[in-house]
């Protein structure tokens, strides 16, 4: 059980350390800044509400990512009808980045549901495969195979775009 003061400090430290990472994952999973903001708010609200129950504060990163994953699944199932809108790519304002950003987000969204989070957590956030396996509650071998298939798919989609973009510069 934490006092109000330690609870507040723990929460603030979690926001400072992990909010950026949670937001990035939320955005890459949903493809929408608006939805990502909503997911992050819901995640941290649930965390704040239940923070007094956390037994191992050093594992707060897993805890937050687990809540985000649940919030995302919940949101998606509540809004199945609008799924194509949730997963659509938002227009970007900077013209020269447009092709690059769109292609990355499109490639991420094209991954299978079970490949997306392992890819984002390992490549974007630097989690180890053991950590991802623990978060998702599946064997490490399963994560390795999902990562392998995900990487292959991304490379097929993105590598040629990037190479031709590099040649045109």
């Amino acid at each position, binding site marked *: 059980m934490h006092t109000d003061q330690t609870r507040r400090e723990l929460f603030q430290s979690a926001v400072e350390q992990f*909010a*950026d990472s949670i937001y*990035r994952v939320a955005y890459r999973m949903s493809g929408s800044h608006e939805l990502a903001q909503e997911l992050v708010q819901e995640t941290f609200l649930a965390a704040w509400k239940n923070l007094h129950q956390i037994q191992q504060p050093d594992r707060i990163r897993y805890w937050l990512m687990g809540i985000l994953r649940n919030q995302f699944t919940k949101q998606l199932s509540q809004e199945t009808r609008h799924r194509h809108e949730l997963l659509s790519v938002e227009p970007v304002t900077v013209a020269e980045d447009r092709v690059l950003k769109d292609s990355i987000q499109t490639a991420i969204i094209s991954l299978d549901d079970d490949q997306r989070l392992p890819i984002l957590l390992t490549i974007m956030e630097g989690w180890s495969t053991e950590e991802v396996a623990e978060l998702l509650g599946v064997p490490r071998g399963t994560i390795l195979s999902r990562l392998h298939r995900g990487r292959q798919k991304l490379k097929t989609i993105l590598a040629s775009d990037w190479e031709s973009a590099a040649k045109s510069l």
Partner: protein
Amino acid sequence: MSDERFEQKLATELRRVEIPPQLQAQLLELSRQPTDELERANSVAPDTRDRKGLRRQRGWILAITTAGLLTAFYWGWSLLNSRSPMQLVDTPSSPSATLPSEPTTKAAEALAELQRLRSLRQELELAYQRLEQAESSSLAFEEALESGRPELAVDADTLKAETFFWTAETSLFSGYKTDGVRAQLLYVISEFPDSAAAQRAKSLLADF
């Protein structure tokens, strides 16, 4: 492009997204508000919505569970009544029944029928176990959210998809290859297209 270079570039591009500063400030602000005020604000909107949603979800699951249970009872009861093992062995009321070969054939048939009924009973018992599991999962989902362990809550749609699927699967395995079962499988595929249950429903439909 080498694998290593590709992955480095991918990581760099993916990390370009940053949390809007005002959102981070809002999150930090949460902890600066008096706890009771925040709890109150938090309990009004999202929680009320969550509980309503939960009640609806649980109502759904219980309705499906009850329907499955009643159907299983009905099948079992009809089958047991229509072919009671006791009726399969003729009493030696006529002279022909005393012929040595016929009672032996009847006894073999009765034995086969008994075995069939035993296996049906096992299927029904299995169906009950799955019903219990579905109900306990739905309760666990509700408890996980309400007891403040939202990260443990199971996705309710997955649960619904699984429940619909196994009632259809149980019907099929019990020999009921009907339009109703087919409609139920199609429902799982159309309503929960991304679920594992939908994939299994597709392979069952292929055998129709």
